[in-house]
């Protein structure tokens, strides 16, 4: 396994707020100990805190997430909502390990590895999980230019052992379902409209049929007809057993797909913070029904 293993050892005590943060109230699934947690939970966050230690101008400690705990059941769709700056994207990035959580645990029940703490799993393990189990749809498509749309989607299947013709066939199938016209299949997504790019982005994540899919405002740049198609596919993937965590600003879309909703709030003037600059804690509360 990768050298260094859990990097938290060297960070211990630096700016960890474990156990002294804001109490978390009424979480979907509740905040439970690792051993006691439900059999069905596939993702379980325990006191996750993410702070950024910025040294560029002057030393600033920024908190994106503070002491956040919740669980997501197998096959469940957890919607995340909250005002801008509440740490919604940071939360998804922590689960995907684009951000390294400062402290806390993110337990994921992997098909290949069993229980994995995504907060400190070896990087090679994360790479394998990203290739086969965990998908992420960003707000915008970021791909290498000069690569045809069909290959952008098909290449996701190559690490899983698919041949190129087979992968391309599956990619075309999915692009058709997402209403990308055939004349665009061999063009580069960089030249596409915003909505078309976003559908290619979704196809890239959907094609591997991940066990856990993280969605960061996947329908933001789509018109209502396209939203319908995307929701349809999300529901179909969910029926196949994929667990999803998604950020939506659109309440209507959220209501159509989400089983549970987690609301992140910016809590001002929280106690116990010695950070300079903007100090904001987060609190989780259920969506008002």
């Amino acid at each position, binding site marked *: 396994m*990768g*050298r260094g293993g859990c990097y938290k050892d060297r960070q211990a005590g630096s700016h960890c707020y474990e156990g002294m943060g804001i109490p978390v109230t009424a979480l979907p699934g509740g905040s439970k100990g690792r051993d006691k947690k439900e059999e069905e939970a596939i993702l379980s966050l325990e006191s996750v805190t993410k702070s950024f230690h910025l040294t560029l101008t002057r030393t600033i400690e920024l908190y994106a997430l503070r002491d956040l705990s919740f669980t997501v059941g197998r096959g469940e769709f957890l919607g995340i909502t909250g005002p801008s700056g509440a740490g919604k994207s940071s939360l998804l990035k922590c689960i995907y390990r684009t951000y390294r959580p400062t402290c806390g645990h993110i337990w994921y029940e992997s098909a290949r590895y069993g229980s994995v703490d995504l907060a400190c799993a070896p990087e090679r*393990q994360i790479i394998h999980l990203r290739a086969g189990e965990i998908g992420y749809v960003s707000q915008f498509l970021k791909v290498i230019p*000069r690569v045809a749309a069909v290959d952008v989607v098909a290449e996701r299947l190559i690490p899983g052992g698919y041949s190129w013709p087979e992968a391309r066939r599956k990619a075309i199938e999915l692009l058709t379902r997402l209403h990308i016209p055939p004349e665009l299949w061999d063009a580069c997504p960089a030249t596409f409209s915003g909505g078309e790019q976003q559908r290619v982005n979704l196809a890239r994540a959907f094609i591997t049929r991940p066990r856990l899919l993280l969605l960061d405002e996947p329908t933001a740049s789509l018109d209502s007809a396209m939203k319908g198609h995307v929701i349809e596919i999300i529901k179909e993937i969910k029926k196949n057993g994929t667990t999803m965590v998604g950020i939506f600003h659109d309440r209507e879309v959220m209501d159509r797909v989400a089983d549970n909703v987690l609301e992140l709030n910016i809590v001002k003037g929280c106690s116990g913070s010695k950070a300079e600059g903007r100090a904001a804690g987060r609190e989780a509360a259920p969506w008002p029904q």
Partner: protein
Amino acid sequence: MMNQAGRAIAAVSAINEEQPLLAVSGLGKRYGPGCPACLDLQGQRCPQCGSLWACYDISFDLYPGEILGLVGESGSGKSTLLRCLYFEEEATTGIMTIPSYQGGPANLLAASAQQQRYIRNHMMGMVFQNPWLGLRMHVSGGGNIAEKLLAAGVYHVGRIRTRAAELWRQVEMPLPRLDEYPQNFSGGMQQRVQIAKALANKPPLLLLDEVTTGLDLSVQARVLDLVRQIQRELGVAMLLVSHDLAVIRMLADRTMVMHQGRLVEQGLTDQVLEDPEHPYTQLLVRSLL
């Protein structure tokens, strides 16, 4: 075409039996006499004996088929590290092993010159930043490739000729120019001939030192596409040195950051670029985006 079961078995064995292709620990390169104070050095230059450490305590693993990025400012020791790994320079300290070679013998850095030559000729290829270091400018392009093949124990002239033409096509060089001197080629073409030469012995490991620096944009793009294609189709592991973060973002799975002769950070490429922890990495990322 692999069937479902074969695919599953391949995927499982790839993960469970993953061992590094190349393991390096505590590698250091000293210019100067050295003294006991060098053992516990803070900066790059020893205050006692005045020795300069171009690399200090470098440890990392490189896995089969992955692209590992290495970034850092000029003078941070990137090229020195690569030259030590390619046995062009003698490392002062450290251990380097290739576990798949003879069941993973002791330290290759301390192996005999003959053994090092064997490793270099059979398991490594290197592309230098300066084509004059990697190519014999007064020997034909085909002759340059033949040199590498002869070193790897291929003596059949017909077979050398066929392989050279095959590589020439692979790097998209015009076949009629196979017998021309590399000094007549443009910078981009020289880089492609270097890549062809490095690939001649079908090495599992390729060391790339700033392959695109100094090339114009469209040529850069074609060389990068070539690198991507080689990794995808031949599954060659690469250590990719670059100071261009766009190149790293596009190609590398994992990235290491060097600063003043030391590795100051390593992680998943997106994590290093989006959530840099070391002050130097923060400066680097903010400088170039």
